[in-house]
């Protein structure tokens, strides 16, 4: 069984992502109600290994990963691919270069 961290951390992670997605009204969303209900229902007090709880925790961690990576992918997409074709200066800047400057002009301008 893969180790996914403690349930509380996973739960808070999911809630944080939902808040980032749905804004301040996230507590009224279906996902919030469902996630909280699942985490409350499956709390165990003893330290015994509970298979169902472990399975659920893996699922919760998977959902957290989905929400988090989708948000980060979207942020990167908007930063680098979402603005259409970039200018030559920006492309050069991306790889740490600058376009050459020609003080006297390039010769073909009027």
């Amino acid at each position: 069984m893969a180790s996914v961290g403690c349930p509380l951390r996973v739960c808070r992670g999911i809630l944080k992502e939902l808040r980032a997605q749905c804004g301040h009204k996230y507590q009224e969303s279906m996902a919030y109600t469902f996630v909280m209900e699942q985490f409350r229902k499956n709390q165990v007090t003893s330290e015994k290994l509970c298979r169902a709880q472990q399975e659920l925790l893996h699922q919760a961690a998977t959902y957290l990963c989905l929400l988090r990576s989708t948000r980060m992918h979207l942020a990167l997409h908007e930063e680098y691919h979402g603005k259409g074709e970039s200018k030559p200066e920006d492309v050069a800047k991306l790889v740490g270069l600058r376009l050459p400057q020609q003080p006297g002009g390039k010769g073909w301008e009027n």
Partner: protein
Amino acid sequence: MLRQATRLCTHFPVRSCTRSYLSERKKFYQDVSISQGEGGLFEVSLDRRKLKTPGGKLFAVASEPLAIAVATEWDSQKDTLKFYTMHLTTLCNTAIDNPTQRNKEQIITAALKYLETDTVCYRVEEPQGLVELQKNEWDPVIQWIEKRYDVEIGSSSSIAGPTIPQRTRDTFSQHLASYGFWALTGLEFVITQLKSVVLPFALIDRHLTVEKAVLLSRLEEEYQIQRWGSVEWAHDYDCQELRSRTAAGTLFVHLCSEASTIKRKLLQG
């Protein structure tokens, strides 16, 4: 196809062409809700209009958590609809419409083709650092799956890859056949994303986390990143995309196979 898409408000042609994959439509709804319709299936409504698939069919899923997750995807869209971030919706649409018109056997054959060229079975002979990294990271997963399914896989550094015994193929084929059509669609999606059969099996059996499976699938790239540095707009971009796709596929398989267990129990009772 595109004309039809604009006519049907809840219809998007995810698989029809590349441009539409990246195209963004204005958000045309405010409220997203789910309801239980015919046959106990869960439907998603956008402002009281029922969501439909690109094929024009009613969007209905057997699992309530899946319906909630799909509704959350639609709910979290801001001004424009970004379909490339809605992996669960896309997977459901693919399962409902079955755009490639394949049956279970054909999907299994297609998925098992990845076993012949499985990422974790292909090894390099140099550089030494990567050879050791592959051995240390990939060998435990291969050992785990060989023990768990009582099969023989092995690894190889030849261009032809390892020879997979027929018995191994048959075992995996049987396991895949035990999944329903929906779960199988999700599993094939994860297999094609990770370019591996071994890693998705370990993922579905909860032996690995999504992050770890993605790391193992991109091991050589991670090695190169460690050596040459990470470039955000290429490496991180790919990594996050692969993670979100893999997580969506895994969640989809789990949620869809749970729903089928509940159904079976009800039938028995």
